[in-house]
């Protein structure tokens, strides 16, 4: 039974598809409860990083405490946890959900439910969260709230009749959302005097305080000075500070069962505070950690190199700083003949990879060359040894390979029914295996396919979007490894293999891919003083060839007194262009070429 104190707490999150208005709704809730004054109000407060705001996505979980006074003057404490909204961060989402008793399911009144939303709804249901559907953007002319309500009932099986109809943008219906939260989301429970059990749902590195751990107290209480233990890592620390998010960090005397707040304990590294881990007291530990902890592992790898070799140390420092804040980012030094010294980096997915690259370039002012992403392949060698390959260059010679396996995912695609044919065609092209198809409300379909991960990490999402005019949404989860007929595709420039361009592909795809890459490289590599053959090869067999014709001249016909300064500027520009090139043997290759395999369509 919840204590009287717990009776006045509501912990919840918001589930929504990108663009359906999650952040705007969160902002309105804060504004209506007076958590921020209008002057402090900056649009979309919860999305704090520049990149998050620009892309309209949430990367890190954030939390805020709101104080709501109902019509009877009763005060409630709302803890709103904002969750990452992308498939790459599914595990983080699941931990944020585990910290809540309920969720607002925000659905765009004209778009309806999307695959991403559905995936998170299922996650929420797995955690027994009370779902409150909220129909947003009802002010739009294309809004069809009744249809969307039926869709919610049909698809998710929850009552949507009394769903608040809101326009977060225009502040319509916010009060009814607040009332629903009080009425429908159960208060937290948990023995305040039991041994401490706190769930870590995120952590953040701060230069001054060390790691700030975001927690939901499940049982017991925690105070500054307490000695705590991370149950998965076994690390122990002394608590320096506890408090709440308002949304700035405000210290409190203690955090009790049911509370959402933060703990600092002079922790130097986020890897010591793994998301999903349970914090307990060192001297009075709980006997069992909270369920569901797992160590997340990267799914996608790529090589990251500084464009300017002299900045290798800067790149390492930057990666180390980012890792302070991102336990799922992995990297280790690697060397490439073509690109010099760099790092093989592991990411949760493509978005995660994109974000890290963008942050390195933007926040650390680095100019990067990145190789095409790769998944982790398993190779069974003839001697029985099983090795994992994250860099295609490290694939053993064919004679030493008994068999190879590649990671598979279960993909769910939701789309208007009229695009079913094109989606099935796309999945077929990507070696997908059809599983199921369900109709929703007669107008939309939910398709389930099994697909090799390496077929979706390049441009699957873009292709899906373009074939469905942007209407399809997509979600996937890793389901394991399958035997596969894979080969290493090498690219040769001027007769030499360029290690950074090698990739592992399915044998049936190798010919076509080799040809397209060769064509793409021909476009990207500028003509030089000699002819440059571009070849794609499997082992010793050349499967595609293109030629960059030799430049016939590079000379300015006229150069008199009035042309000298201009000519010098032209040469300086030419030199700048050269600097952005990588010298491979005698061939100058632009940096974009290393990502060429990504842009095949």
């Amino acid at each position, binding site marked *: 039974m919840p204590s009287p104190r717990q009776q006045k707490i509501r912990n919840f999150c918001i589930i929504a598809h990108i663009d359906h208005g999650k952040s705007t709704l969160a902002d309105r809730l804060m504004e209506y409860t007076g958590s921020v004054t209008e002057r402090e109000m900056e649009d979309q407060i919860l999305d704090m990083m520049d990149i998050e705001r620009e892309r309209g996505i949430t990367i890190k979980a954030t939390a805020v405490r709101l104080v709501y006074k109902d019509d009877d003057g009763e005060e409630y404490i709302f803890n709103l946890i904002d969750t990452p909204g992308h498939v790459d961060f599914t595990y983080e989402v699941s931990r944020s959900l585990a910290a809540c008793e309920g969720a607002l399911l925000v659905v765009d009144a004209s778009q309806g439910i999307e695959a991403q939303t559905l995936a998170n709804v299922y996650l929420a249901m797995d955690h027994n969260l009370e779902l409150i559907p909220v129909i947003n953007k009802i002010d739009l002319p294309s809004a069809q709230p009744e249809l969307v309500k039926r869709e919610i009932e049909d698809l998710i099986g929850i009552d949507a009749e009394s769903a608040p109809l809101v326009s977060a943008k225009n502040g319509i219906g916010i009060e009814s959302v607040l009332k629903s939260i009080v009425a429908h989301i159960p208060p937290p429970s948990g023995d305040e005097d039991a041994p401490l059990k706190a769930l870590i749902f995120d952590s953040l590195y701060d230069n001054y305080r060390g790691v700030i751990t975001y927690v939901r107290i499940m049982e017991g209480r925690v105070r500054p000075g307490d000695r705590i233990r991370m149950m998965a890592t076994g690390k122990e620390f002394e608590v320096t500070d506890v408090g709440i998010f308002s949304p700035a960090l405000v210290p409190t005397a203690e955090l009790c069962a049911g509370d959402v707040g933060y703990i600092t304990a002079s922790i130097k590294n986020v890897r010591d505070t793994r998301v999903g881990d349970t914090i307990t007291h060192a001297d009075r530990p709980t006997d069992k950690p909270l369920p569901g902890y797992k160590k997340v592992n990267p799914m996608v790898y790529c090589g990251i190199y500084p464009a300017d070799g002299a900045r290798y140390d800067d790149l390492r420092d930057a990666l180390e700083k980012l890792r302070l804040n991102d336990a799922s980012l992995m990297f280790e030094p690697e060397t490439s003949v073509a690109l010099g010294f760099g790092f093989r980096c592991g990411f949760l997915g493509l978005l995660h990879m994109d974000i890290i690259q963008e942050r390195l370039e933007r926040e650390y002012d680095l100019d990067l060359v990145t190789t095409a992403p790769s998944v982790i392949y398993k190779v069974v060698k003839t001697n029985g040894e099983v090795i994992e390959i994250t860099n295609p260059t490290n694939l053993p010679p064919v004679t030493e390979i008994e068999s190879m396996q590649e990671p598979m995912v279960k993909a769910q695609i939701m789309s208007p029914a009229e695009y079913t044919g094109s989606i099935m065609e796309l999945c077929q092209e990507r070696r997908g295996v059809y599983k199921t198809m369900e109709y929703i409300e007669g107008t939309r379909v939910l398709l389930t396919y099994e697909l090799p991960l390496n077929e979706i990490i390049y441009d699957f999402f873009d292709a899906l979007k373009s074939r469905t005019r942007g209407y399809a949404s997509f979600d996937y989860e890793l389901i394991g490894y399958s035997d596969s007929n894979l080969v290493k595709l090498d690219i040769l420039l001027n007769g030499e293999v360029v290690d950074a361009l090698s990739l592992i592909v399915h044998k049936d795809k190798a010919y076509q891919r080799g040809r397209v890459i060769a064509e793409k490289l021909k476009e990207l590599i500028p003509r030089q003083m000699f002819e440059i053959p571009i070849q794609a090869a499997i082992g010793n067999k050349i499967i595609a060839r293109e030629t960059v014709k030799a430049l016939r*001249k590079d000379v*300015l016909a*006229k150069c008199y007194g*009035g042309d000298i300064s201009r000519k010098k500027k032209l040469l*300086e520009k*030419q030199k700048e262009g050269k600097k952005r090139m990588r010298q491979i043997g005698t061939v100058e290759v632009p940096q974009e070429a290393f990502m060429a395999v990504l842009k095949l369509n």
Partner: protein
Amino acid sequence: MKARGLYLHFPFCARKCSYCDFPSFPGKERYMAPYLGALLKEIGGYNKEKGEKYRISTIFMGGGTPTLFNGDHLAGALDKCRECFNVDEDAEITIESNPGTVDHKKLLVLRKSGFNRLSIGLQAWQDRLLKFLGRIHTAREFEDAVLMAQKAGFENINADVIFGIPGQSLEDWLETLKRTAALNVTHISAYSLIVEEGTPLYKLKQKGLPGEVAEDAEREMYHKGVDLLERLGFYRYEISNFARPGYECRHNLNYWKNGEYIGCGSGAHQYLDGVRSYNTPDLEAYIEMMSKTGNASLGSEKIDRDQEVFETLMLGFRLTEGIGKDDFHKRFGFDLSERYSDRISALKREGLVLEDDTAIRPTARGFDFQNQIALTFLD
């Protein structure tokens, strides 16, 4: 005192050629008189009451078409130069002209007043190509102009010609060279057509030019042209310039040896006392600035030692004689082949330059890839 070149710009022409991106304008005849006044004023600014005047060893009046002015005015401008500068006795004094803007009388006046080199724009021997280029004359009129000039006492005559014109065949090009050489000119400037942004030709090109000369064919024209001129007694001393021995253009050689020069007139550039600067290219603005402030400069740049070294190499490798080792050492106080031994080796490996005891010069291939040579020395 250091010898310098003097360039005077005349931004008037009877008609804008389709390929021209020079600051020169047709239909502005009403500005000719005020412009000349402004130009003389700018020249006058160099006339020092006290101290030594700048020594000038070459004068080049270019345009536009300077010979749109009458002979007396041009002679007057030359007199003004002699008054304000210390012009060498044996100075090379060139004036640019176009067929149709000179007659025997004007040429006599010019020759008498001291002009000793005449540059005539021909471009091509085929009238259909001349028409395409927007020229105001025929090949026949060019021929007449050369003969008149020779009769008026001009022995040193240059013809400007162009290859790579849309619709021009290799045969057209070689005919142009043969016919021009047969007129006993002493110098031929042969340019590859550059379609510059903002020219009428550029707009045409955007739409797709019929008969556009492909890169391979353009290079063939160049290489065959070099060979033919060689056989006709003209040797290539710079990428686009060919002369009978002893008739190299001294004024232009000074640019390529990175010497200093004074420039007067709208759009004129100069390199004086270590500073590169340029005048406004706007004809009316030039006249106004000269009358109000006596200065029409729009910008300037101090050339430091490193830039001077680079510019010397960038320009010097345009010349067949290349960079003389002694000259270079004398000028900069260090040894070229020592300081840049790696880069020079790389250029030699690529077959772009040759080195002997006295100089480093471009090879035949080096002439095709002059930018690559220059880039090697750019840091």
